[in-house]
């Protein structure tokens, strides 16, 4: 059943996603969002991770999709709209600033170095998310095999993400089915 403790104020949702949007360099956003929403008690890891898979499979950018998913979970349509708008607000303004000034900025190697550092830290956050998502996998042969197969299909064989998810998910769901009623 629905177990929403208290209604999360829209302003809190806006503030949370605005800051994430402002610092969203290098695409490593999932971990940060995961950390923000779980540490505030807005969602559990088990509620977040299906959204993470959904956001990656559906068309559209992962970061905007996961904002919509979290916003919808917290406050329905209004929550989704606020989260999406907040996520894009700062990048939108900065991209316009960049449009005017980019010729100067692009030529400064020191700025490029700083950006690469931000990107590396973002990968570190993704590593932490990878660790939590591995921990969330049930300790049984079937789910662990699916996890390894998914990893190998993408990392080693470079199959497209959408193909892998469309093949792996039905298999994984079927394997999880008999135990599906036991607990959450």
């Amino acid at each position, binding site marked *: 059943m629905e177990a929403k403790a208290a209604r999360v104020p829209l302003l809190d949702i806006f503030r949370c996603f605005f800051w994430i949007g402002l610092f969203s360099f290098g695409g490593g956003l999932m971990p940060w969002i995961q950390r923000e929403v779980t540490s505030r008690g807005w969602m559990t890891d088990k509620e977040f991770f299906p959204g993470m898979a959904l956001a990656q499979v559906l068309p559209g950018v992962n970061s905007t999709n996961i904002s919509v998913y979290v916003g*919808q979970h917290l406050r329905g349509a209004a929550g989704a709209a606020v989260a999406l708008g907040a996520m894009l607000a700062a990048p939108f303004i900065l991209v316009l600033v960049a449009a005017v000034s980019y010729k100067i900025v692009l030529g400064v190697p020191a700025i490029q170095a700083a950006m690469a550092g931000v990107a590396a830290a973002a990968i570190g956050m993704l590593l932490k998310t990878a660790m939590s998502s591995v921990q969330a996998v049930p300790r049984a042969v079937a789910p662990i095999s699916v996890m390894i197969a998914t990893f190998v299909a993408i990392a080693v064989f470079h199959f497209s993400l959408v193909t892998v998810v469309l093949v792996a998910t039905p298999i994984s769901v079927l394997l999880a089915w008999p135990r599906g009623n036991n607990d959450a």
Partner: protein
Amino acid sequence: MMRDDSNLLGLIVVLAPLSLASVGGATAIYAPLQHEAVELRQWVTPQEFLDYFAIMRFTPGPSSLLGALIGWKIAGFWGALVATLSLYIPSSLLCYAAARTWHKFRGRPWHTATERGLLPVAAGLVCAGVLALFQLSGGDLKVGGVIVGVAIALTLFRKLNPMFLLIAGAIVFELVFLAGI
């Protein structure tokens, strides 16, 4: 008010379908966007398109915001705004519908099975993502060091603000850059 009505309409016609075509990330739309904006409609020159691509590396946000720069070029602020809305509203509506359906059926056996079934898939995807990004970022010692350092810091300090770690990453790289290593 809006003298660029035809341009604004053109932005919607080009970008809204791309919103739904960006499967697997923003980079999927680069090729079709370049074809439409540079070759067919000549909104921007090839050099401008490449410059916009570079801008995406040092501004935050999804790299498909490149469309906003094209909008800015041909129709100013309103062009940028219309481009952004065209790029993100269609895919967001689809995601909203999916999220809503997902939450509506909480507690059903198939929902629980799907939730459980998605966990190992999501875990495999993230692990592959870490590896791919590590290789893409050059995969040298300072990248590896920052990655492991950040993951350890996040594990040890549960209340740590990630923004602090991003800035720390920038500082480390800046020091390495200044030291000329």
